[in-house]
């Protein structure tokens, strides 16, 4: 059974239809990439799954439960975390406070401490900037914070919305390494990326989203070699 399944999802912004009935699934332990051009509806998809936007019709199923109408905060408790587009760190709070909020759904203090330590190990820059207000961090630092914050909830699945945006090449590589290692720790990943090459290279499977519809799907390695994908998304 799929860990996360989206069935015929339609989403509207007022009269604009952003998603025109998309279906896909993510199995436990997979990395699934969702690629597509600007405005294709990737962020909309993630927001709808996480319960931030109401679905027009269709359904979202997670761990066998219908979560289409479940409020966002409860979905997080069910073990889903998200690294949102544009980072959305809590600007007036310190790095440490941001991380602590990431563990909002968790109770065990010792375990939380443990996770914080792990996050700091992954992102030494965050340890250096512990006490700095998140709003004054550089773009890359904020991205690390957003990622660390999502990891704090110890999720089963993590949805990432363009985690490499605005990062230096070195860090992009690092971020993908981190995604890989997060995945190796047993976290399922749904990855939205503009950097299709990198995304496809670490993903198991992938979907291509175009103007609200899924246009292609398949094994990531196959898509990486697909002529159309290469032309449209890899710039070759």
């Amino acid at each position: 059974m799929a860990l996360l399944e989206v069935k015929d999802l339609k989403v509207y912004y007022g009269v604009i239809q952003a998603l025109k009935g998309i279906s896909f699934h993510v199995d436990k332990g997979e990395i699934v990439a969702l690629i597509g051009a600007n405005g294709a509806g990737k962020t909309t998809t993630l927001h709808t799954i996480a319960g931030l936007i109401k679905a027009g019709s269709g359904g979202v199923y997670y761990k066998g439960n219908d979560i289409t109408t479940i409020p966002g905060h409860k979905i997080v408790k069910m073990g889903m975390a998200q690294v949102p587009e544009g980072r959305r760190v809590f600007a007036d709070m310190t790095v440490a406070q941001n991380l602590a909020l990431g563990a909002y759904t968790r109770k065990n203090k010792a375990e939380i401490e443990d996770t914080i330590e792990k996050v700091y190990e992954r992102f030494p820059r965050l340890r250096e900037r512990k006490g700095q207000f998140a709003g004054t961090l550089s773009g890359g630092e904020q991205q690390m914070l957003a990622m660390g914050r999502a990891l704090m909830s110890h999720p089963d699945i993590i949805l990432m919305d363009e985690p490499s945006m605005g990062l230096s090449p070195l860090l992009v590589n690092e971020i993908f390494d981190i995604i890989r290692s997060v995945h190796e720790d047993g976290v399922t990943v749904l990855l939205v990326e503009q950097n299709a090459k990198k995304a496809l290279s670490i993903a198991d499977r992938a979907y291509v989203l175009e103007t609200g519809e899924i246009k292609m799907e398949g094994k990531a390695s196959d898509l990486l070699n697909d002529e159309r994908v290469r032309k449209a998304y890899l710039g070759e």
Partner: protein
Amino acid sequence: MNFLTYLISGISLGSVYAIIALGYTMVYGIAKMLNFAHGDFIMVGCYAIFTIVGAFSGSGLGMVIGVIAATVICTAVGVLTERIAYRPLREAGSPLAVLITAIGVSYLLENLALLIFGSDPKSFSSIIKWEGITIASLNIPGVTIVTICVSIIVLVLLQLFIHKTKDGQAMLAASQDRGAATLMGINVNRTISLTFAIGSFLAAIAGALLCSAYPTLNPYTGAMPGIKAFVAAVLGGIGSIPGAMIGGIVLGVIEILGRSYVSSQLSDAIVFAVLIIVLLVKPTGLLGKQIQEKV
């Protein structure tokens, strides 16, 4: 000597503003809305105490029950108001929409009170019977001492709550980015309800102290202190809890000193003029932190 007397009067008045401002700033800082009905929540609390104490004909027990019942009633009114009138507008994209609704709620509460309790003023019997302390013919009224103590306790508790508890952190998070807060697993609606619950709970306490210090009650009792407390909250720095406390005291002292040394007709103008000057010198209030927007 006189100066000291006035200073004490100022602190007395200021302590009442301060305790109101604490509740105000709580809602203001977290829900990011000017709850213009806050003053009227206070009035609701006053009437609750008045009615219940009256029913128990002024026995000591009546006071206690009165205050407890008032906090319960106020909290309920606050939470209900938020649920019915403010929550549907939260995603409307304009804090002004909620502001206007709050004004509607303010009218509603005032006119309800007018219908239920009538327009005639009622005299409130202070719930604090203590005369206070007298040092060399200077009397510090009991109400003032109690009000200041309560304000300080509230201040400390609020600070601890916001900075040390999960719910407090959730409030801060929700105040900055509700979507991101949801992604942390925070129930934003519940958090904001909680904020209103605390704010209105404090309104009841403030009401008890306001009416003990200035024992008269009519449907509009809360309006002016509410506005003054709002001014105090801004003077202290929006969203800053210690700021609200200091802002309240400073406002009270300025009002009284202005009235005694400059002009009793123009004391309101003096208060507001000082506010303007402070804000021009320190654009985010006394304790407000200037958060620079990262470009």
